[in-house]
């Protein structure tokens, strides 16, 4: 699922935090969230969910076992990212 993310400042803290949740190491290539920033003016966020078969089969599990999703916790614009993550959950359920 791809979302417009005007608020995103492209720091990629969500990607590296997410990879740590899934693998215990830092590697943006092993995350279930991806910042699409080919032009840094028009940033989009891709969330890999179960239906979509993410990279290396790493799909968003809402950081099962943690109080808060790692991507939201470390995003400097956490509230805005939270809306996207919650929307992605809703869309999948639908």
């Amino acid at each position, binding site marked *: 699922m791809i979302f417009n993310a005007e608020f995103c400042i492209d*720091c*990629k*803290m969500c990607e590296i935090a997410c990879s740590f949740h899934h*693998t215990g190491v*830092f590697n*943006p290539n092993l995350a279930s969230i991806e910042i699409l920033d080919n032009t840094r003016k028009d940033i989009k966020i891709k969330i890999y969910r179960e239906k979509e078969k993410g990279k290396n089969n790493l799909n968003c599990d809402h950081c099962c076992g943690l109080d808060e999703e790692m991507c939201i916790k470390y995003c400097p614009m956490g509230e805005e990212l939270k809306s996207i993550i919650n929307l992605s959950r809703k869309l999948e359920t639908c």
Partner: protein
Amino acid sequence: MTNIKKKKNVIKILHIDLGNGNIFLEKTDRYHEWLGGIGIGEWLIYKEVKTSVNAFDPENRIIFGTGPLNGTLSPTACRLYAVSKSPLNLMCSSSAGGFFAPELRFAGYDHIVIKGKSKKPVLILINDEDVKIINASDVWGKTTWETDNYLKNITKQPKLQVLSIGPAGEKLVRGACIMVNKNRALGRAGLGAIMGSKNLKAIAVRGTKSVNIANPKQFFSISDKIINKLKKSKAIKALGNYGTLSCVENKNLYGGWSYKNFQDLNIPFTMRKKFSSDVLKKNYEKKILSCFSCPIGCDRIYEINKGPYKGTEAEGTQFESLAAFGAKLGIDDFSFCVKADSLCNQLGIDVDFPAGIIAWLMESNEKGLIDKKDLDGIIPSWGDQESALKFINKIAHREGIGDVLANGALYAANLLNKKSKYYVMNIKGKELYEPLRYAVGYTLGACVSPRGGTHTMGSPFCESNANIDFKKAKEKYKIETFNKPLEWKDKEKLVAYYEKLHRIDSCLGLCHYVTDWLDISLPGFKDLTDLCNSVIGEEYTEEEIMRISLRIINIEKAFNLLHANLSKKDDFPPERDMKEAVPTGPAKGFKLKKEKFNNLLEKYYTLHEWDKATGFPTRKCLEKLNLTDVANDLKKAGKLIEK
């Protein structure tokens, strides 16, 4: 002090010889006493580049380095370092943010050491283990932005991270820089010309591996604490709101501008109104951006919507461009600063280099010391945007008089009119960005910096920081004058603190903004030591970390004595700053009297256990730091004090 115990942190160095095409990977734990980043880079330059080697000789090296925190979630762990013997024969390290450094670590490397000279222009492509040297004939002569796009197109890898030189680097312009991700510069040291001398146009990297940390629990505990401190900091909030233009109000308050080639350190009311950070944000800011793993967001895209530069868009225009192309040239138009900054980024030339040269030309013209016939018919006068843009292009392409100017303002003044040398505002031959007569500690930091005039290798910021927490600052600095910019007492102690702290964040891969430089409550040595230990699984003490920083500072000192034959006179401010009092504003009437500055310099040398009469290190100081070989090198050159 005890010697640091042997540590186990293994680093990976990619060695590339462009002369014969040899590439090999070295895995080593030999550099535990240099930590990482500039520590390892500068030691390798000291060890491997002999004094007989000139900057543009194939035997010179250029080293790109990361620190152990790059690639982790540690806030601001984005900085890339490049180190080389510079065109002025100085030990020059330069740092840039962006995304290259973490990508290099994701590809499995900590440093790249490049030596030799390719027969033809080349590019280096790194894709994890796959390292190739390929022909650069399609992009030789092109701008840094075109080169970045070209590499992404031919590799079909949009996530490729690129550093490149533009026409200025290819033509060995002394102030050529290396651009990282198009808009971040490894600047102020002429390192672009070193790449050009090796016929190396660009390096591109893509990495898919992982960066591990030794002790995650400890890492997240410290890292989270730092992130919370950043969130609470007023200075960081302002940086997030306005980018580096946030310092405009402080510059007004203390008088820290470089108006008309530093004639005044205060700017006229009309310029002040146009350069207000709120006005600039409202009229030009298009998007807020950040570097890798940085929650601050001080990067910006600025867009020009009207006037002659309509349609110009630039990422990364900093306060430095406002000061250099605005105040210094008497141009009260930010859209020109964005245009000039964008042009410099594309041509691969350091902002301060042409700005310093043009400011000297404008003042020499004002004083009747230069003839337009010598300048290809261009009359450089204050506020003239068109002639400034012409000179930037001429310098970067070495076209016409640009061929002379490309060797720097001092060189050009010697050729064109020696009387104009007084107006070449420089330290150690390098064009100056820093206004000096408004803060004594800041001045000392800029004057003793190894690469020649810079505020990022020891200059404190607390002297001109209106929002400083007085109690905390007094506890940390242990002096009374930390917030009194025009007082002389104890300023050497502030410089000694920040030159050490900034060497350490530069070893680790962090940005200065995460340290207590702008806000006293942010990390100092303790937090940086703990963070480092949690990532590499070592047990450095704060004392050991400080000792590493002193080793680095002494290596820089020794290199510059041996290679550039520097002496005490090279650590003084430009003549104007010592002779002329500031005409208006908060620092009105202040000048850096030579005798007073000499006293301060001697105190600074004494703090380092260097000889106060010459600035040469003592054997005792170097042996304490386990640098006996360096002491012996200096002894042979007659630049060691045997005590």
